[in-house]
């Protein structure tokens, strides 16, 4: 029995080697795994599943979404960076730069092969409906005078992607973000609850995340940190309308592979991604749900990833997280 098992194992192994040695030309000839470092049913998951459906159609092989939500996504994107660069493990990357500075892993743009960015969600600043603040400019003014007077919800751990974007605006306006009262929460929903319950005075989160509470009239959005108003939320002013040169910021999502992905595979994927991005279904799905549409090919994405790393470092240095 034991011997039989041994034999079978050896045989299977030999066969496996023989076939997996096939070149990148016939990629993909088996199902592809798409690592999504977020929970099933969340925003990242939704966009990934739309992409997966499109890619499946283009390449005729299943693209299976695998959710790896633990630890705010760090576990998932680390696994993605460590995967074999054979084109059978791809994944969705988002703001990854803070992790390295917070002592988790050593992920940089070098850890991945950029393919295409398909989404950018801008950060926004929200207040409770009956708040004294009517504009973002007023908030910044108040913080300049008395930095301790406002409790700022990060909408996640502090510093979060949202709060970092807001921090950038504050730093540019000469405010020392180290002394501000940043209040963490377990996700945007919990942050909204805090905001409405009067636990924090302002909250940073994306506009779609706050959409329910906006509709309910419980929350007002002071400004979205975007270059221009969002088509899904035309009533929300931009930060630039109130504060000159307010830097836009938020969260990007992109399809990437582990570092060292063969060029032929990246070529195929980049072409497919552009087609999917421009397809009517994808555009409709994204804009109806309030996801920001932004496309960057692999070169543009690489440049953006470097900018993202620099911006993150600036903010974290000002926050005192990097000495």
């Amino acid at each position, binding site marked *: 029995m034991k011997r039989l098992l041994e034999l079978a*194992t050896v045989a299977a192994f030999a066969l496996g080697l023989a076939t997996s040695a096939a070149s990148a030309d016939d990629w993909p000839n088996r199902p592809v795994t798409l690592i999504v470092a977020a929970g099933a049913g969340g925003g990242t998951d939704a966009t990934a599943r739309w992409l997966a459906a499109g890619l499946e159609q283009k390449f005729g092989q299943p693209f299976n979404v695998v959710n790896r939500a633990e630890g705010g996504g760090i576990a998932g994107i680390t696994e993605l960076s460590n995967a074999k660069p054979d084109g059978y493990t791809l994944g969705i990357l988002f703001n990854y730069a803070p992790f390295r500075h917070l002592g988790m892993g050593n992920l940089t743009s070098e850890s991945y092969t950029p393919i295409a960015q398909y989404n950018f969600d801008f950060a926004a600043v929200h207040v409770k409906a009956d708040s004294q603040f009517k504009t973002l400019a007023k908030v910044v003014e108040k913080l300049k005078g008395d930095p301790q007077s406002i409790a700022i919800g990060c909408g996640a751990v502090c510093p979060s992607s949202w709060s970092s974007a807001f921090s950038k605006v504050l730093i540019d306006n000469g405010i020392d973000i180290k002394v501000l009262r940043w209040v963490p929460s377990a996700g945007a929903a919990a942050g909204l609850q805090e905001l409405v319950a009067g636990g924090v005075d302002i909250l940073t989160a994306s506009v779609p995340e706050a959409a329910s509470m906006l509709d309910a009239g419980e929350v007002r959005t002071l400004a979205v940190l975007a270059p221009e108003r969002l088509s899904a939320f035309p009533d929300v002013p931009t930060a630039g309308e109130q504060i000159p040169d307010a830097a836009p910021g938020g969260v990007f999502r992109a399809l990437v592979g582990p570092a060292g992905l063969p060029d032929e595979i990246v070529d195929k994927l980049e072409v497919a991604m552009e087609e999917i991005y421009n397809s009517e279904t994808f555009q409709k799905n994204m804009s109806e749900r309030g996801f920001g549409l932004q496309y960057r090919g692999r070169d543009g994405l690489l440049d953006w990833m470097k900018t993202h790393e620099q911006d993150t470092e600036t903010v974290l240095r000002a926050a005192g997280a990097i000495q």
Partner: protein
Amino acid sequence: MKVSDIVLGPIIVALGVIALIASSMQPRPIFGGGYGGGFFPAIVGIGLVGTGLILSWNGWRERAAVPLVAFESWIHSRRHLANVAVVIAALLFYILTSSWLGFIIAGFISLFVTMLQFTRAPLASFIVSVATIAVVKVTFQDMMLVPLPWGLLEAYAGVLTWR
């Protein structure tokens, strides 16, 4: 396996001390007014030291009546010892080899060996194990898309996927 409180107490105290040392090594927080990652673990550590001391004291009072370590009868039965060893070994085997061998092979081996040890019926164990692995594979991997590892069979993932 019953261990006397006189042994367990100091272990708990030691755990508490380790928690205290570990929390003192936590970095000061960037934000949050001085309450860092070490604050809560330190409280828990103090609690563990306290309760561990009480436990040790209880054990000390009962030291005459309670043996340091007492085993139940399974320790004297080679078969039952082997049972326990096989369960743990089977799980360890799966943990160590599943990404290399894949769920189908590693899962089958773990299941078959454990069942064989429990039942001593090779043929029946083989059939039941094959059937179980097949059912789990089809329902979880194929129907519910749980990404069980393919391992060695990766090259045949396309052929082996039932849709």
